[in-house]
C-alpha cells in the first residue's frame, strides 16, 4: 500500500493542460506563418525565429536569475508570445529591434506582473505597441508581398489601411482612393494574403483556418472573435451606409489589417480576457467599437492593438460584474 496515491476526488484528469493548449495555439498559427513565408521569404523566417528565441531566452533568464524560481518555459507560453509578436512586426524589421520588442513584451508585459497568468495586458501587444510608438517609421514600412525568392531587398509599400487613411486625410473619397490603387484593394488578394502588412496578419484565410482548428480543439470559444467581427461589421456598416464617400465598407475592415489576427489570437488570450461568456461578449463589442473609432476617426490607420489593450484594462471590472447565471438563481420580482 505504501506506493498508493491518495488525493481528494476527482481522481481523473482531462487531457488538456497548459502546454497542450499553447501547442494548439502554435499549430493554429502555422498556416498564417506558411503564407507569410511564401510572400515575404527569409524576412519572415528571420524575424519569427529572432522573436521566439529572444522571448524564450528572456523569460528563462528572468526566472532563473532575477526571480530565482524554476523556469517554466516548458509550458510554451513564451513561444506563443514570441510568435504573435513576430506576426505583428514587418518582415523587414532589423533583428535588433525584434529583440528589443521581445524583451519589452516578456520583461515588461509579462514577468513584471508575476509571469504567466498574472499579466493584465497581452504581452505580445505590449511589445508591439511599444515598438509602434518608439519606432514608427520602421514599424510602418512594410515590404511588398512579392514571393519567396525575390524578397530580400524587396520594395516597400503601404498597407491598404494606410493608403486609405492617407487618401481620406488628403480629402479624397473612398471611391477615388480605390480607383487610384486598384492593386491594393482586391478582396481576393486580401483573403489569400497578397497585401502589404505585418508578417502574420496578411492572410485572412489562413488565420480563419487556424480559428477553425482552435474551435475544433476546444482551445477557445467562439464568443470573443465572433462578437468582434459582428461589432465591426455592424458599426462599420452603419458608418458606411451613412456616408459611403468617407467611410469604407465593413468587409474592407474585416479583411485588412490585424483584425483577424487580433480577434482570433490576441483578444482571446486567456490571461487577459474575461472569464464568463457574458463578459466575453462585452469585451468583444468593446474591442470592435474602439477599433473602428480609431480606424475611422483616429490618427492611426490601424486600431485593433490599441483596442485590445484598452479593453484588457477593463477585464477585472468585467469579471467583477459579469457573473455567470447561477444554477437555481431565482429572479427577483421586477
Amino acid at each position: 500500500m505504501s506506493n498508493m496515491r491518495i488525493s481528494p476526488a476527482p481522481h481523473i484528469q482531462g487531457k488538456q493542460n497548459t502546454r497542450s493548449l499553447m501547442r494548439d495555439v502554435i499549430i493554429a498559427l502555422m498556416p498564417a506563418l506558411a503564407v507569410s513565408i511564401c510572400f515575404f521569404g527569409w524576412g519572415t523566417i528571420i524575424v519569427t525565429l529572432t522573436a521566439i528565441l529572444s522571448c524564450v531566452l528572456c523569460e528563462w533568464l528572468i526566472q532563473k536569475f532575477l526571480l530565482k524560481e524554476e523556469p517554466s518555459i516548458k509550458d510554451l507560453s513564451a513561444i506563443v508570445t514570441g510568435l504573435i509578436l513576430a506576426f505583428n512586426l514587418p518582415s523587414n524589421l532589423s533583428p535588433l529591434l525584434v529583440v528589443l520588442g521581445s524583451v519589452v513584451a516578456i520583461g515588461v508585459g509579462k514577468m513584471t506582473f508575476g509571469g504567466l497568468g498574472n499579466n493584465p495586458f497581452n504581452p505580445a501587444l505590449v511589445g508591439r505597441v511599444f515598438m509602434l510608438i518608439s519606432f514608427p517609421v520602421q514599424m510602418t514600412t512594410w515590404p511588398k508581398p512579392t514571393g519567396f525568392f525575390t524578397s530580400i531587398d524587396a520594395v516597400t509599400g503601404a498597407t491598404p489601411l494606410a493608403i486609405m487613411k492617407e487618401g481620406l486625410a488628403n480629402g479624397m473619397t473612398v471611391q477615388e482612393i480605390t480607383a487610384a490603387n486598384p492593386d491594393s484593394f482586391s478582396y481576393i488578394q486580401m483573403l489569400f494574403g497578397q497585401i502589404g502588412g505585418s508578417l502574420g496578419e496578411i492572410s485572412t484565410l489562413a488565420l480563419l483556418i487556424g480559428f477553425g482548428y482552435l474551435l475544433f480543439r476546444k482551445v477557445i470559444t467562439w464568443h470573443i472573435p465572433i462578437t468582434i467581427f459582428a461589432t465591426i461589421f455592424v458599426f462599420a456598416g452603419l458608418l458606411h451606409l451613412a456616408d459611403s464617400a468617407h467611410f469604407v465598407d465593413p468587409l474592407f475592415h474585416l479583411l485588412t489589417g490585424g483584425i483577424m489576427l487580433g480577434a482570433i489570437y490576441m483578444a482571446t488570450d486567456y490571461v487577459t480576457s474575461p472569464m464568463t461568456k457574458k463578459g466575453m461578449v462585452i469585451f468583444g463589442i468593446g474591442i470592435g467599437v474602439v477599433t473602428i473609432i480609431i480606424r475611422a476617426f483616429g490618427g492611426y490607420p490601424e486600431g485593433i492593438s490599441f483596442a485590445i489593450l484598452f479593453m484588457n484594462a477593463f477585464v477585472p471590472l468585467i469579471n467583477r460584474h459579469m457573473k455567470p447565471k447561477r444554477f437555481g438563481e431565482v429572479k427577483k420580482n421586477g
Partner: protein
Amino acid sequence: MIKTFKRGGVHPPENKISAQVAIEVFNTQDTVRIFTSQHLGVPAEPVVTKGDTVKVGQLIAKSSGFISANVHSSVSGTVTSIEAIADHMGFKKTAICIKIEGDEWEESIDRSPDIIREIKHTPEEIIQKITDAGVVGLGGATFPTNVKLSIPPGKKAEALIVNGAECEPYLTSDHRLMLEAGEQILIGMEIIRQALKIDKTYIGIETNKMDAINHLKSFTQWIKHIEIVPLKPRYPQGGEKQLIKAVTGKEVPINGLPIDTGYVVCNVGTVYSVYEAVQKNKPLIDNTVTITGKKLKTQKNYLVRVGTPMSQLIESVGGIPEGTGKIVSGGPMMGKPIANIDGPTLKGSSSILFMTEEESSRGDSSNCIRCAKCVGVCPMGLEPYLLLRLAERKMNDQLEANFVHNCIECGCCLYTCPARLPLVDYIRLGKAEVLKIMRSRK
C-alpha cells in the same frame, strides 16, 4: 431529442469495463465489521453487546435521532467486540465486529426468489418498513431514505425521479441491477409512488445503457405511471439537481432541496432496497459493488454483505494489479480514495476501483492561466478559479457572496483545469466553512 442538463458538465471516458459481468454473490469469510454510522447524520446506537449471537438481518444498532438509520447484522454469528476501528480512509469509527458462524437468517425475511408484485401496505406502513430496514440512499450521500420520503409539512411531492444515470465512469453496479432486477426496481418505484401519494414517476437512464432502457420498457405492466427518460451521457447527470433539470427542465433554487420543486430523487439501488424492505422484509444488509480497473484481469459485480473487509474483495480478483497508482471507493469523479484496504464495506459502497499509475496522477499544478474552462464546465454556474483564491485566503464573506454553498463538489473544475489547480479541494473546505457560518447565523 435526448434530454440532458444544459449548463456545464464534462464527459470523461466512460470505461464501463464491467458492464457485461453479471452480479455474483460474494461469500464473506471470517468476520465482518459493521460501522454504526453508515449514513448521513447521527450514528446508530448499538443494541447488542459482546458475546451476543446474532442472525442475518437482526437489528444490531438502533437509529438515534431524527436523521439516523438502523443498522442490521449482515451475517449470523457472535459479536466479538464493539470498538473503534479504522475505515477505508483511516478514520476511526465505532464498529460492531461479528465472527461469522453459519448463515442463519431471521425468520421474517422472505428469501425465495419469487417476485412479489402485489403491494398491500398503506403509505404509513411502507415508510415504517423502510425505516425499520435501515434503507439509506445508495447514490453516494447515504441519506436515510425514510427521512427523504417523509415530506416536511408545507411541502408537496409531485413526482419521483429515479436516478439510473450512473454518470460516473467505470461504475456498473446500477446498470447491472437494472438489467438483473429491473422488475423489482419498477415495483419499488410503484411502492414509493404509493407512499408519497403521487401520480408521476420518472426513471432517467443515460443512453450508454440502452439494454437497460429496453429491458425496463419490456415490463409493460408497470409502465403506466412510469416514464423512462433516456438521457445523453454527461457527468454530473446523476447529481440530483442536474437530474431534475435534465428530466423536467426545472431548477432547484439556491439553498433549496429537490422537494422545493416538488421532486423526490432516489437512486435505483435505493429503490431496489425499498422493494426488498417492503415486499421481502429484508433490511439493507448487502449491496452491489463493482470491482474494476483497466489493469484488472477479472472484472466483477458482486453482491456484498455490509461490513466485508475490502481486502477480501481485492484478494478474490487476484490482489492489487501491477501498475495500480490509486484505489478508489466509488467513482473516479467523486469517490473516496482507499488508504486502508482492511476497512470494511459500507451500505453506500458502490465500487472498488483500481486506477492505473498514469490515470491517477494529478500532475504538478502551475499558475492559473485564467482560461475560464472551469467557469464553462461548472454545472452550478460558479467561478471555481475565484472561489479557489478566496478559499485559500479564507475570505468567507466573499465566498458566500459568490455562492460557494451552491457547489455540488462534482469535481468538473479540477477535471478540466489545464493548470491542474486543486480547485475543488479548496472549494470544498471553503464551502464547509461557509455552511458552518450560515448555520450559526440561523
